[in-house]
């Protein structure tokens, strides 16, 4: 899932300081699961904003709504009338949702309430970890199902580097060295030979540096 993290309240208040009536739009997708952008998060944020503005003697009206997914136009259409009635939209979807809103309602200023962090999953209750960088050329087959592109601080394909000690990354002692884990995993799978080959330089064209990427699923085309 896409994991987001709420921006500091002060930053959000600054974004909307010129507005008296806004829509606070959550998302029923990934960010609901990670607690940062669902209807409950929207409710909490709305009350925090109202309280802060009331204290500042500058009250604000907030319409809350949480579409099934903010990243698809078809779920946004039904809010067209409400969007018209406000001065701006505060979106607590991921960056994809914010952009879908900005495109669907180009006349309206849509501002982000979250910092979109990464693609990952919960490793324990309320703790998420990054697991995929969307590099566009998956290597999980030979790495024992563990991604060095998203999880190694140097994106090595021939790790672990010399800073791997006690299974921990030199960059952050709270982070496991994914290359040590890959080694352990491949040992269990009896596939250590996967690590004896020099892995060639990655073709980064599939990644984020060739401009916006686009996928077409031919069979589903209308």
């Amino acid at each position, binding site marked *: 899932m896409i994991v987001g993290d709420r921006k500091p309240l002060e930053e959000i208040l600054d974004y909307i300081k010129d507005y008296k009536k806004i829509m606070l739009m959550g998302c029923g997708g990934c960010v609901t699961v990670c607690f940062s952008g669902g209807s409950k998060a929207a409710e909490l944020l709305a009350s925090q904003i109202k309280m802060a503005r009331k204290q500042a003697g500058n009250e604000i009206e907030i319409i809350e709504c949480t579409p099934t997914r903010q990243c698809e136009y078809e779920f946004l259409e039904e809010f067209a009338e409400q969007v018209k009635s406000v001065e701006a939209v505060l979106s607590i979807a991921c960056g994809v949702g914010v952009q879908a809103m900005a495109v669907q309602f180009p006349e309206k200023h849509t501002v982000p309430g979250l910092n979109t962090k990464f693609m990952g999953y919960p490793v324990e209750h309320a703790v998420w970890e990054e697991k995929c960088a969307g590099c566009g050329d998956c290597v999980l087959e030979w790495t024992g199902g563990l991604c060095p592109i998203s999880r190694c*601080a*140097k*994106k*090595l*394909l*021939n*790790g*672990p*580097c*010399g*800073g*791997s*000690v*006690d*299974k*921990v990354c*030199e*960059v*952050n002692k709270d982070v496991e*060295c994914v290359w*040590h884990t890959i*080694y*352990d995993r491949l040992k269990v799978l009896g596939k*250590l030979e996967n*690590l*004896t*080959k*020099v*892995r*060639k*330089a*990655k073709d*980064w064209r599939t990644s984020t540096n060739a401009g916006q990427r686009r996928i077409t699923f031919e069979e589903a085309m209308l």
Partner: protein
Amino acid sequence: MKSGSKLEKVLTAGEFAVTAELGPPPNSNAEAVIKKAKHSLGVAEAVNITDNQTAIVRMSSIAAAAIAIQQGLEPVAQMVCRDRNRIAMQSDVLGAAALGVKNLLCLSGDHQCFGNHPEAKNVYCVDSMQLIAMVKQMRDEKKFISGDPIKEYEPRLFIGAVANPFADPFEFRVMRLAKKIEAGADFIQTQCIFDLDRFEEWMKLVVEQGLHKKAYIMAGITPVRSSRALKYMKAEVAGITIPDALIERMDGADDPKEEGVKIACEMIERVKGIEGVSGLHLMPIGWESITPVILEKAGLLPRPEVD
């Protein structure tokens, strides 16, 4: 000869080789490079010129290497993967060779979070293994990594890599060394050795696999001036093992500098006796002036003459 460097000649002649280290200054002062270069002149085959080590901005390693060459010193230019993509790296490889650099040490580079620009974006377009392979391909196949030909004047470099016997998983460290050699490393410089027992154990595995015959292994020794430096490295530098006995010895020393020199000489004596070790890489971090003193005391002077 792959490069014709003095380092390559001494190693291929079967002599115990010596490389030292020179950290470029954090400014544009050529005099600082010249001054440091003098410490190593005539006492080592070549001198590593570090590339923004610990991710702290310093004069470019290739620029400092060019200054060192003017002083009659043979550099081992270091190149890390942190700051440049494959276009810039190959361009710098060509530039370094054009300036007379004959030895190139390929490393991943310390992560930027350890330096003075932690907000920087790192690159790692290629990793250290791929950098080694890239430089070898440029030299031996006369091709850029893209496959485009280098029609003439290919960079003739003696390719170095690093190995850390003290990082984990221990049993993979020799396998990784084998990969670096397969990728094209001609010589290997190790991480600073303080735990000689572990180094010896690692070298045993290296020799068992015959890797010492495929590349020259140079043992990394760092003289220290105080027990504080040892304690700092033990606490802060990942991948360096420091035995407590060594710290205690430095703590108890009347003259820590003298003791540091003594310890370094003892270590050099011991690594010289380990099978498969072809040379010494002396890394007196920020203490370059001690290089000739230690090499003299360790009986490594004068250096052998080679053509």
